[in-house]
């Protein structure tokens, strides 16, 4: 389609020169390094018996637990930086063209609003995947500081993190076409992290049998299918399983009940549907926007 490639290419070029994304990326890159070397230092300290007296565990077990803890924090840090970068892209990719008046010159050219919106979405997703991909590569290198064993979980975790960030980024992108980009980011955060979080959590409690009320359960069953569902990789389960194996408690099903299992085909299909819905909202917002 005429113009999609050009809009995507030059939006990515512009995003790559924006300081806010560079700052988020550098924070992420430096943060992961500090994080890895910090844990490595703790690990070395523990291996040399520095913490032996304060722990009931033998040094080998303690090292392994420390490594699992490191991975758990690493995945959390990756998700946080991916989300920051997603917000950064969503807040700027379309909004700055509209706010500065650049859209006036752009949209007077023979390009449809659909092609313009699609080009922006392609650029936003492409930039996110590229930046998170580089951070993930760095995370993989940082993991070399520790004995291996759970490397494969990183790939799934990065894919799930990126997929979830794409959804929130599209929400910000659509809202920032209607309103100020900071307000858009706040609204998107409240919708995705607070409202969706509450609905998903309550729904999970009803599903696990912790709550009992048929009417409320029905309400939350309906609400659950109106919000995006965060995709979950096998990594959290893998980490808990490894931890339980170490502690010889693998039969402890109570702990497992609160660890979400990896998303299945239905969740992935719902995610894809949500991406289409929010991309559609971006297009509608761009189409309705008068410049």
């Amino acid at each position, binding site marked *: 389609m005429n113009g999609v490639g050009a809009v995507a290419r030059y939006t990515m070029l512009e995003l790559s020169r924006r300081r806010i994304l560079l700052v988020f990326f550098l924070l992420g890159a430096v943060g992961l390094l500090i994080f890895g070397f910090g844990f490595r230092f703790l690990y070395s300290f523990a291996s040399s018996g520095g913490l032996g007296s304060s722990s009931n565990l033998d040094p080998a077990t303690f090292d392994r637990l420390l490594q699992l803890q490191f991975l758990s924090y690493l995945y959390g840090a990756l998700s946080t930086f991916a989300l920051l970068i997603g917000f950064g892209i969503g807040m700027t990719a379309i909004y700055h063209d509209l706010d500065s008046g650049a859209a006036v*010159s752009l949209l007077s050219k023979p390009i449809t609003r659909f092609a313009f919106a699609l080009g922006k979405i392609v650029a936003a997703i492409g930039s996110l995947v590229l930046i998170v991909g580089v951070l993930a590569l760095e995370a993989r290198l940082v993991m070399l500081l520790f004995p291996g064993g759970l490397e494969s979980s990183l790939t799934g975790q990065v894919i799930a993190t990126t997929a979830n960030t794409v959804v929130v980024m599209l929400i910000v992108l659509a809202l920032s076409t209607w309103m100020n980009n900071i307000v858009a980011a706040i609204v998107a955060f409240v919708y995705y992290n607070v409202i969706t979080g509450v609905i998903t959590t309550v729904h999970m409690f009803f599903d696990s049998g912790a709550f009992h009320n048929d009417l409320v359960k029905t309400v939350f069953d309906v609400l659950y299918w109106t919000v995006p569902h965060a995709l979950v990789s096998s990594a959290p389960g893998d980490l808990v399983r490894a931890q339980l194996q170490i502690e010889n408690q693998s039969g402890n099903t109570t702990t497992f009940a609160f660890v979400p299992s990896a998303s299945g085909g239905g969740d992935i299909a719902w995610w894809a549907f949500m991406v289409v819905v929010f991309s559609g909202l971006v297009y509608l917002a761009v189409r309705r926007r008068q410049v």
Partner: protein
Amino acid sequence: MAAVVSVRDLRKRYRRRDPWAVDGVTLELGAGQAFGLLGPNGAGKTSVVKMIAGLLRPDGGAITVFGSSPGDPAARAQLGFAPEDPDFPKFLRAAEVLDYFSSLLGLDDAERKRRIPETLAFAGLESERRQIRQYSKGMKQRLGIAQAILGRPKLLILDEPTADLDPLGRRDVRALIERLKQSGVAILLNSHLLSEVELVCDTVAIMAKGRVLKEGTMSEVVPEGRNLEDVFVQLVETNQMPRDHLPSFITDKDGTV
């Protein structure tokens, strides 16, 4: 000969309770004609040209550009629009902006290699390596005109094209308009600079409060022995509330001024 732009009873307002920003404007523009749209601030000139360029949706009336709706990309492919206070993606350079717009215009590589340096040279930006965010208003205005002519349009819409230009830049824009007119390009010029409009336009429409007060060829609108500014001031003042032009603290006899 079919009109390049045909506007019939055009209406636009930005909010339901607001007065009409454009109220029943009708105009027609043919090939090789230069049409001047004049009016005080808030007259509705920019709204009219933005609707012709397909950037704003009219609330009433009809517009055709080369016989099609302004929303049709095929119509916009023949149109060049230099907006008032133009801006561009801030982190790109002038050559990148023109390359971006060339892609949107569907120009092939050979055409880009020919047109981009020549257009940059016309705009006096050929040796400029800074990003747009570091440009002055005048430089952005020159780039705005450059991108408008990049696609060799058959209709060129210029919204206050010389407001931020120095006298040399203004002279270049006048020469450009003359040259394009001769080659059959229709020009729609929106300007406060009446002397400029008088020099380059064949037809003018004077607007105020969204309405066209007077329209015709330059000789029809400006009687012999008068100039465009006199006609403009008289027309606009008879159509708006009289106002005291100077604040009282300026005219006060005890004041220091």
